[in-house]
C-alpha cells in the first residue's frame, strides 16, 4: 500500500529488490531473539518472584536450543562448504558456528550463576535473562557478520545489553558506576569503530567484507592513507571490546563493580564476540594488508600480556585481579590472531573455548564467595577458605591453576596451541614473551591459592579481624551445576583434547559470496 502511495506521489518506481532470506541459516540467531521476546512477554504476565527459577531454565533451554540449531548447519558447512546469506551480509562458516556455540555456552553458565545470585540479592526478575539473550544474539550476529554495518549492528546489540547488565545491581553504587563507565567508554569506542567503517568504505567503496576482499584482489591502492586510518580506527573499536591494552582501562573497574555472574559472561561471551569480529575483519577481509596491521597487533599483544600480568600482581581485590588476568588472556588470544594463519585462528578459537570454562568457573566461585551484597572480594576475605569451604577452594584452585596454564587442564593446551601458532609464524620472541607473562600472572593465581590455603601475607592479616566470618555458605543447585560444567570442561579438555582440537581446526573462517 505504501508502494502505491509512493507511486502516486513520485511517479512510477521500480520495486526494491530485497534479498532472499534463507531462514534456516539464521536459526541460532532466531532462536535466541525469539527466546528473549517470549521470555519478556510471558514473564510480564507471571508473578514477580517465582519459587522455581524458571527464568533461568527458559534462558538455558533457549541457549541450548541455539546450540542444537548449530548442529545441522555445522554438518551442512562441513559437507558443502561455507556460504553467505542475506545478500552476503551474513556468512555461515565453521568459524561463526563455533563461536555461536561458545557464546551460547557462556550464556548457559551465566544464567546458572545468575539464578542464585539474583535470589541472594533480592533482585529477581526476567530482565537480566532477557538482556543476556539479547546480548548473546548480538554476539552471534558479530560472529557471522560479513558486512561492517551488520558487524556494527551486532556490536551495539551486544554492548547496550551488557551496559545495562553491568548496572543490574540496583542497590550497589559500584554497579551503577561500572555501568556508566562502561557505557561512556563503550560509546566512544563505537564511535571510533563507526568512523573506521566510514573510512574503509571511502577507501574501498564497500562495507561488505566479501567485496572488500574482492576489491583488494583486483586493485592496488595508490594512496593507502585513508584505508590505513580506517584499519587503525577499527582496531581501536575491537581493542576496546576485547580489552586490549591500551584500550583496557575500563576493565578492572567494570569487572569489579558489575554483578559477578555478569562478569562471567563479559569475560567469556563478550570477549568471544569481540575476537570473532576482529578475526573476521582483520584476518579475512584485511588479510592482504596484514603486513601493515600485524606489527601493530604484535605490540598490542605484548603490551596486553605484560600490562595484564604485571598490574594483576599488585591488586588486592580478587575481582580486579581476575580482571587484569583476563586482559592477560586477551593478549594470548591476540598472539593467535597476530599469526594470521589458519593455525592461528584455530588456536584463538581453542583458547576462547577453553577459557570459557575456567573463567566461567572462577567467576562462579567469586559469585558464591561474594556473599550477600557481592562485596567480599578482598584478598583478605579469601583467607582460610581452604579450611572453611574445602570443595569450593579446591575447585577455585583448579580453575586458577588452569588459567596459569598447568598441564592436564584446558588452560595449558590453549597456551600450547597459541605458542605453536606463533612459532609457526616465526614469531619466536612473541611466543617467549607470552610464556614469560604467563609466569608473572601465575604469581597472582598462586597468591590467591596461598591466601585460601596458607593464610595471607602478614600485613593483610591485620584487616581480617574486623568482620566476623559470615554464616554457612549456601551453594544453590544451579550454581553447583555451573561449577560442575566448568570443572568438567576445564579438566576434560586437558585430558581429552582431541575433539575440541579437531573442531577448532575445522572451524575455519571463510569469506564467500552467495552459496545456497
Amino acid at each position, binding site marked *: 500500500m505504501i508502494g502505491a502511495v509512493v507511486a502516486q506521489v513520485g511517479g512510477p518506481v521500480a520495486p526494491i529488490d530485497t534479498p532472499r532470506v534463507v531462514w534456516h541459516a539464521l536459526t541460532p540467531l532466531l532462536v535466541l531473539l525469539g527466546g528473549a521476546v517470549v521470555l519478556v512477554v510471558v514473564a510480564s504476565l507471571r508473578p514477580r518472584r517465582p519459587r522455581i527459577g524458571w527464568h533461568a531454565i527458559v534462558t538455558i533451554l533457549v541457549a541450548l536450543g541455539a546450540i542444537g540449531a548449530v548442529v545441522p548447519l555445522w554438518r551442512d558447512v562441513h559437507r558443502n562448504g561455507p556460504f553467505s546469506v542475506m545478500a552476503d551480509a551474513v556468512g555461515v562458516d565453521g568459524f561463526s558456528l563455533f563461536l555461536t556455540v561458545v557464546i551460547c555456552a557462556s550464556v548457559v553458565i551465566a544464567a546458572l550463576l545468575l539464578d542464585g545470585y539474583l535470589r541472594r540479592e533480592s533482585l529477581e526478575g526476567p530482565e537480566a535473562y532477557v538482556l543476556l539473550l539479547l546480548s548473546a544474539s548480538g554476539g552471534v550476529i558479530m560472529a557471522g557478520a560479513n558486512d561492517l554495518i551488520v558487524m556494527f549492528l551486532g556490536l551495539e546489540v551486544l554492548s547496550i545489553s551488557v551496559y545495562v547488565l553491568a548496572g543490574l545491581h540496583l542497590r550497589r553504587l559500584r554497579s551503577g558506576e561500572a555501568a556508566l563507565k562502561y557505557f561512556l567508554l563503550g560509546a566512544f569506542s563505537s564511535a571510533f569503530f563507526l568512523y573506521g567503517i566510514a573510512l574503509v568504505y571511502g577507501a574501498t567503496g564497500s562495507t561488505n567484507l566479501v567485496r572488500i576482499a574482492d576489491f583488494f584482489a583486483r586493485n592496488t591502492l595508490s594512496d593507502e592513507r585513508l584505508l590505513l586510518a580506517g584499519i587503525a580506527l577499527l582496531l581501536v573499536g575491537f581493542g576496546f571490546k576485547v580489552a586490549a591494552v591500551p584500550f583496557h582501562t575500563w576493565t578492572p573497574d567494570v569487572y569489579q563493580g558489575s554483578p559477578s555472574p555478569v562478569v562471567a559472561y563479559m569475560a567469556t561471551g563478550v570477549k568471544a564476540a569481540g575476537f570473532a569480529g576482529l578475526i573476521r575483519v582483520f584476518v579475512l577481509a584485511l588479510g592482504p594488508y596484514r603486513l601493515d596491521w600485524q606489527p601493530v597487533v604484535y605490540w598490542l599483544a605484548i603490551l596486553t600480556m605484560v600490562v595484564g600480568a604485571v598490574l594483576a600482581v599488585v591488586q588486592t581485590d580478587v575481582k580486579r585481579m581476575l580482571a587484569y588476568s583476563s586482559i592477560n588472556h586477551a593478549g594470548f588470544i591476540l598472539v593467535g590472531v597476530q599469526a594470521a594463519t589458519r593455525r592461528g585462528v584455530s588456536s584463538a578459537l581453542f583458547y576462547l573455548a577453553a577459557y570459557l570454562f575456567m573463567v566461567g568457573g572462577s567467576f562462579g566461585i567469586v559469585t558464591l564467595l561474594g556473599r550477600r551484597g557481592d562485596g567480599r572480594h578482598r584478598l583478605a576475605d579469601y583467607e582460610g577458605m581452604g579450611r572453611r569451604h574445602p570443595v569450593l577452594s579446591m575447585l577455585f584452585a583448579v580453575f586458577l591453576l588452569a588459567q596459569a596454564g598447568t598441564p592436564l587442564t584446558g588452560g595449558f593446551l590453549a597456551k*600450547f596451541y597459541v*605458542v605453536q601458532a606463533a612459532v609457526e609464524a616465526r614469531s619466536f620472541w612473541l611466543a617467549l614473551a607470552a610464556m614469560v607473562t604467563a609466569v608473572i600472572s601465575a604469581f597472582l593465581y598462586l597468591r590467591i591459592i596461598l591466601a585460601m590455603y596458607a593464610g595471607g601475607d602478614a600485613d593483610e592479616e591485620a584487616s581480617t579481624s574486623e568482620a566476623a566470618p559470615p554464616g554457612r555458605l549456601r551453594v544453590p543447585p544451579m550454581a553447583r551445576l555451573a561449577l560442575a560444567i566448568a570443572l568438567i570442561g576445564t579438566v576434560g579438555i586437558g585430558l581429552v583434547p582431541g575433539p575440541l582440537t579437531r573442531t577448532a581446526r575445522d572451524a575455519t573462517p571463510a569469506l564467500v559470496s552467495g552459496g545456497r
Partner: protein
Amino acid sequence: MSALALVGATAAAAANAATSATSASAANAATSAADASPQFPVLTALVVLPAVGALVTGLVSRRRPEAARQVAVLFAVLTGALSIGALVLFKTGTPGFQLVDKATWIKDLDISWFLGIDGISLFLVVLTGVLFPIAMLGGIPHHDEKPFYAWLLMLEAGCMGVFLALDLFVFFVMFEIVLVPMYFLIAGWGYERRRYAAIKFFLYTMLGSAFMLVGLVATAVLYQRAGHPLTFNLVTIATNQGSIATTTARWLFLSFAVAFAVKVPVFPLHTWLPDAHTQAPTAGSVILAGVMLKLGTYGFLRFGLYLFPEAATWFAPAMVTLGVIGIIYGAVAAAMQRDLKRLIAYSSVAHLGFIVLGTFAITTQGLEGGVLQMVNHGISTGALFLLVGMIYERRHTRAIAELRGLQRAAPIFAAVFTVVMMSSIGVPGLNGFVGEFLTLLGAFLTRRWWAVVGATGVIVAALYLLWAYQRVFHGKLDDANADFGELRLREGLVLAPLLGIIVFLGVYPKPVLDRIEPSVKALVAQVENNGGQRQPPVATTGTSAREGTFVRGERKGAGG
C-alpha cells in the same frame, strides 16, 4: 578401606588394558626390545597407580587420617614393587628403550602417550619407587594427613612420568605438573617462611619451563618444516638428526637448558633451592632433593645430549664450568650455614655440580658416574634430610649452634648419621665414592683442569660435613639436648633400606653399572656420530680401551 583400594586397583587395570591394546603396534617404533614387550604395561602402571592412589586417598573420610595414611603407603609400596618389577624385567646389555607403551593422545599433532625405559632412566625410576614410601613413612605431617599423602602420590606419578616419557609433549606435561603438588606440600606443611619458599620455587621452575615450552614447540615445528610429518616423538626427532640447522639447534638446546638448569639447579639459577629445601616438610625435602633435582639432570641427558648432540657439545665447556662453579660455591656456602637443613640443601648444589660435570664431559665414565651419582645423591641426601627431620622432631630447632653432644645421648642415631654423611662425602666403600670417582675420571679425560678443580670439592665436602658433625654430635651434652631420644625402631626401619643401598652400591656397583653402560655408550655414540666431540679411546671400556694408553712407539713394537 581395602574395598576402596580394590576399586582403585581395578580402575588402574582398566586404564592399563586400554593402553596395552595399542602398545603392541607401537613397540616396534624405535626399540630393539620390541618382541620383549610384555602384556602388562608396567610403565603406564607406574604412572597411573600413584595417580589412582592419590584419588583413592582423597576419597577417604577426613576423620580417619590413619586410614588415609595406610592407603597412601600401600599405593606407594605397590608402586615401589612395580618399579622393582621393571628392574627385573629390564634386559641387561641392550641400549634401546624397553617395555615401551604407546597410545595416541592428540592425533592431529602426533602426540602420544609414549613411555619407555633404558639404562639411564631405569635406576631413577627405581629410586623414585623406593624413596616415596620411605619419605611417607619417615616424614609424618602434623595436620591434614589426607591431602598431604594425596599430594605426595600425585607427585610420584608426575616424577615417574618425567623419567618415562619419550614424547616431548608428555615430558613437558609431567615436568610441569610436578610443580603443583610440591607447591602445595611446601605451602601447606612447611616451616615459617613456607609461603615465600613455595611461590619462589613455583615461579623459578615455571620460568624455566616457559623457555622450554617455546623451544619444544619450535623443535617440533622446525622438524616438520624440514619435510617430516609433524610429531612430538622424541625418538623420531632425535634419530633424524640434521633436520634442524646447527645454529637453530643451539638456540633450542639453550631453551631446554634453562629449564633444566633451574631444576638441577646449576649455579646462577640455584637460589630457589635453599629456601625450598629448608622450608619444605621432611617428606617434601626428601623428595625434592632425592627425586626432583634429578628431573633436571635427567633432562640434560635425554633432551640435551640425546636430542641436540652437537649443541650439547658446543655448550659443554660452559656447562662444565658452571658445574665446577656449583661444586665449589655449593661447598663453600654449605660450610657457612648455621641451619643444618640449609647446610644439606647447599651440599645438594655441590653434588649436582658433580653430576653436571660428569654429564657434559661426554665420556662413558663421566656419564655413568653422573647417572650413578644421581641415584647416590637421592639416597644419601634423602637419608640426611630424614635424619635432620628426626632431629627437628626432637629438638624443634635446626640451628647447629643449639645442638651439641648428641652422640652421647643417642649413639645409634649418631652412627647412622655418620654412615650417611660418609656416603655423602664420598668415602670409599660407600656409594658416593663410586659415583664421584667415575665422574671425575670421565671429566679428567676430556676436561682435565675442570676435574682437578672439581676434585677439591670433595675435600671441601668432607670439611663442611665433618665440621657440622663435630658441632652437633661431639662436645659436652648440655641440658637442652640431654633428653635427645635414641633412634626408634620405626625410624630405624625407615632408614634401613637406604643404609643397605648405600653399602651395597659402594661395595658392588657392578650390577647397576652393567645396566647403565649400554645406554650410556649409545648416548656417547649419538653425540659422536652427530658432529660432536670424540671421546679419547681410553674412555671406552672393553678390549679396545687399552689402545688409547699406548704410546705410538709401543703400539708399533707390539705390532712388529
